[in-house]
């Protein structure tokens, strides 16, 4: 692992230097003509008259090297000199500031995510970016496009098709992961709505579409609609924008397959009147997850067909720069291993604990965050019970405005226990085997480069070792190496970032 860290750092510094060189050598002749736009960006158009003056004098006047000797050179000399001077000076600056103009840290997101919605219940976006949109009473609209190119050394396991990098065999593959289209607005003084669509090449799905009350008494808040279940931290986020990796943690994919746990229903949450942040929430959602739960929406009839979720969130501001958020989750719902008639006995329970520890440098965009979740699943099926645990931990460092480095470890099979002689019965697809325990681990290292707050590249290397699982298909195999290159753009309103 140490070795791959070193390699990644080398790649990082190399690309940084390359970029700086590209910027320096990019001498574009029409630049002088557009000087005024370069020095007076739109924000200041009204009040800045100076830069225009600068550009006109630049053209015909000298660019003497000392301010005091300003008036000595002739216009002709100056015109030719100024270009050379500029290029030479730019090269010197590159050397002095160490590339990328010193990786300066001006205005840009400390976290890249936009329209992060779900996290912590009740998305953001009110009063968002488009001032004109607000005048026209339009909701905040954003579109986030994510796609990538993957290489797998062998056929990957537990990469269900959907938003994760997927492949049926070794080799290269191009994939449109998601186009997320979001609409967020206040409905009236009592209610707001947040709607997130995931568009694929040939399908549209509603990721989330919920209403949130803004003014119930006693610290209460009600949400209703299609929403993510508050099982842990990852499951509540639109992860392609908010998480520092190309893919989802293994345990989430193993337990919940290609989508996060979500359903139609309602949530009541309560902000406890305590000196620190304590939020308690309860959800009743349809249990239409394809893996651990499973009653389709149109066949949901009884209370027992719903998924019940309880979540407790606590936050401790240790200092201005250190924060800890700790969550506990419990979910219980039907599985359909015995068919729809036996959902009273065939229950799946999930116990979860999630931790997020963050250090933020107030004066820049630098932060370091540790995020970890443990999920335990207990499934009662005909004839027995399967208990299985999974864990992931990741470390995420924002090095500057432009660079981010993250590493993650995933484990499955802590513990892994089958009691009785469980009959998995009705499985909707042979490959899914919803409750077969896996022994598997993964490790990943990801480097992201943000051109601006609205555009980024991400390169991730992963190693995936399946020791046992997927009964009847594979018993044990060699590690799979993955190289994942992802590109993302953000269009439209500037959503807020969940903590």
């Amino acid at each position: 692992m140490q070795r791959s860290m070193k390699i990644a750092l080398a790649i990082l510094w190399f690309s940084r230097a390359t970029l700086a060189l590209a910027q320096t050598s990019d001498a574009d002749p029409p630049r002088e003509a557009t000087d005024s736009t370069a020095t007076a960006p739109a924000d200041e158009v009204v009040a800045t008259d100076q830069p225009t003056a600068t550009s006109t004098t630049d053209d015909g006047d000298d660019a003497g090297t000392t301010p005091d000797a300003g008036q000595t050179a002739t216009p002709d000399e100056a015109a030719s000199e100024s270009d050379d001077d500029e290029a030479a000076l730019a090269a010197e600056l590159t050397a002095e500031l160490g590339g990328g103009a010193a990786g300066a840290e001006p205005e840009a997101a400390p976290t890249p995510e936009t329209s992060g919605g779900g996290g912590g219940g009740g998305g953001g976006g009110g009063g968002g970016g488009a001032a004109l949109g607000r005048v026209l009473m339009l909701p905040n609209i954003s579109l986030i496009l994510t796609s990538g190119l993957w290489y797998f050394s062998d056929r990957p396991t537990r990469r269900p098709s959907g938003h994760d990098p997927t492949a049926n065999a070794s080799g290269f593959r191009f994939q449109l992961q998601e186009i997320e289209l979001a609409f967020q607005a206040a409905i009236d003084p009592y209610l707001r709505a947040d709607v997130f669509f995931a568009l694929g090449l040939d399908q549209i799905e509603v990721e989330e579409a919920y209403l949130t009350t803004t003014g119930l008494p006693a610290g209460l808040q009600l949400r209703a609609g299609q929403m993510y279940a508050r099982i842990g931290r990852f499951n509540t986020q639109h992860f392609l924008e908010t998480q520092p990796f190309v893919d989802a943690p293994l345990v989430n994919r193993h337990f919940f397959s290609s989508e996060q746990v979500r359903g139609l229903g309602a949530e009541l949450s309560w902000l406890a009147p305590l000196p620190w942040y304590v939020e308690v929430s309860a959800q009743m959602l349809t249990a239409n997850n394809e893996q651990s739960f499973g009653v389709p929406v149109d066949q949901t009839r009884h209370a027992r067909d719903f998924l019940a979720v309880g979540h407790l969130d606590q936050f401790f501001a240790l200092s201005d720069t250190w924060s800890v958020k700790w969550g506990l989750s419990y979910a219980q719902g039907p599985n359909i291993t015995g068919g729809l008639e036996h959902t009273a006995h065939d229950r799946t329970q999930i116990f979860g604990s999630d931790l997020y520890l963050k250090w933020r440098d107030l004066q820049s965009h630098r932060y370091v965050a540790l995020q970890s979740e443990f999920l335990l699943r207990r499934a009662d099926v005909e004839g027995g019970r399967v208990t299985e645990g999974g864990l992931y931990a990741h470390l995420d460092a924002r090095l500057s405005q432009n660079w981010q480095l993250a590493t993650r470890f995933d484990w499955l099979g802590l513990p892994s226990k089958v009691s009785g002689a469980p009959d998995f019965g009705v499985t909707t697809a042979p490959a899914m085997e919803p409750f077969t325990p896996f022994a598997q681990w993964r490790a990943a290292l990801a480097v992201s480069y943000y051109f601006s707050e609205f555009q980024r590249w991400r390169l991730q290397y992963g190693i995936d070792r399946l020791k046992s699982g997927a009964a009847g298909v594979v018993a044990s195999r060699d590690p799979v190496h993955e190289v994942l290159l992802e590109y993302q753009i953000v269009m439209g309103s500037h959503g807020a970032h969940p903590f």
Partner: protein
Amino acid sequence: MNRFLEHLSFCAGVFALFLVGFGTTSSARAEVRVVASVPSLGALVQEVGGDLVHVDTLAAPNQDPHFVDARPNFVLLLHRADLLVQVGLGLEVGWLPPLLTNSRNAAIQLGRPGNLDTSTVCGPLLGVPQGAVDRSMGDVHPGGNPHFLYDPAYALRVAQGIADRLSSLDSAHAATYQANYHAFEGRLQAKRTEWQHLTAPYHGQKFVAFHESTIYLAQFLGLHEAGFIEPQPGISPNPRHLAQIILSMRHDGVHLVLGEPWYDAETSRVVAERANASLVRLPGDVGANGVHSYIELLDHIVRSITQALASHG
């Protein structure tokens, strides 16, 4: 079973103690609870509200107000607030909206009397983009430049707006809020005369700033913005752009580079050095660098800038 009841009642007792403790601390506090998004707004609220208000500030004084983490402890402050005072114009858009939704506090939602967007009372906005706006121009604020608290004339109007809002929320003390405002106005006006004397010799001089946060400061000091280290708002400086800036500074005799503490010091230093100019690091906001009030903040800025300009004759 008895044992269980014992435990249960113990837990309930602890919980009740928490509630009581919380209740008493809150009632012992000041009457109007105000949350300010940035420290200088908090300082203005304190000037106008005096002992009648309790002010909490969200952004730290040495932190870029565009990029504050939406920490959940802010939700608690907002939940209990009677009044939220924000800058507006999209300055807080990256972090305040989800906090506001999660606060479950109807009184401070947008458009309510408990939500004061000070950009609506600060006076004529500068830097409002003309014509079509899109992100090829960088991360522009379509409603106008939000950094108006650098001009005391604007801050005075904001203080007046805060006094008016506090007066309507807490009408029993309206006279006190107005009196506090007038006292503050008197002190600020006296200072403004002093600042005018200090800056008069340098009127018309130019400076380069890191970010487009200085348009109101330039207006207040009678200086001109000659360019920015960022090629466009929110876009990292590149060597080519820096070279252009340095050459034009040398050419135009620009002797001053300004930047807030959250912008890269090294880049600013190199630009200033190569252009034979002085770098003045602005102090950030009230609470940083030994600055304890709004007037001290501007005093600090005026003195450091005039000293730097004086050193260039």
